[in-house]
């Protein structure tokens, strides 16, 4: 990617230029990126929810055409990503709600809650799929 400076200005590195080469990623910032990415993904995920319920209202044949894709391997992969994205966004959202009331800003606490979000979201995802598979 080239970064052309505006006319008359010297060539200087701009902020995206820092990513990867000079910027050291930390857990806290990566979790923040993932929060936004999962949020955008979940917005598209609502189409999955809408499709599921709208085809359900359409009758057995319409529902069958939709459910066929959900039970296929790519549908299951999509559902797995969707469930983890939702549970990650939920766990990290609780972390954000804590910050909103002024709790958890200490660096040590921010890292501890960050690791907790990763672990708890994975455990929740595993338990959702355990319920689905053991059904």
């Amino acid at each position: 990617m080239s970064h052309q400076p505006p006319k008359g200005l010297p060539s200087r590195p701009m902020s995206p230029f820092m990513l990867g080469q000079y910027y050291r990623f930390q857990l806290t910032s990566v979790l923040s990126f993932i929060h936004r990415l999962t949020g955008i993904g979940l917005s598209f995920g609502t189409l999955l929810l809408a499709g599921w319920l709208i085809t359900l209202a359409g009758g057995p044949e319409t529902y069958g055409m939709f459910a066929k894709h959900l039970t296929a391997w790519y549908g299951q992969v999509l559902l797995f990503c969707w469930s983890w994205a939702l549970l990650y966004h939920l766990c990290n959202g609780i972390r954000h709600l804590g910050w909103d009331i002024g709790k958890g800003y200490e660096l040590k606490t921010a890292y501890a809650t960050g690791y907790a979000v990763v672990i708890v979201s994975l455990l929740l995802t595993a338990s959702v799929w355990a319920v689905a598979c053991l059904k």
Partner: protein
Amino acid sequence: MSMRSPLGQARGLGSAKDGTHHFWVQRISAVALIPLSLWFVFSVAQLAGGDFYMVRHWVHAPSVAITLVLFVVAALYHSMLGVQVVIEDYIGNEGSKIVALLLNKFLHAIVAVSTIFAVLKVALGS
């Protein structure tokens, strides 16, 4: 008394007096979504492998239909607020930004109303 128009105030040159509304409703919908999302994922997990009739039977129960509508409303509202922030952060061009913000609101409204209609059709149908 201010001689400025409401639009002039809202453009960021002064307080429009409702700047915290977006922040606040995003938090309210977030809190509502904690129990609703957990209920939804674990309920759907229990429906795994179920056919059309099993899923319809599930949605048919009034408590399920009501909770589903609450989940859809909270999720779509929270999603609309979130996407709005993303658009405001990344789209610099004023014209494109306004078009994107309008599309965001319209599309979320369409998805929400269609999904709620579908739930009600299944729940109230025979």
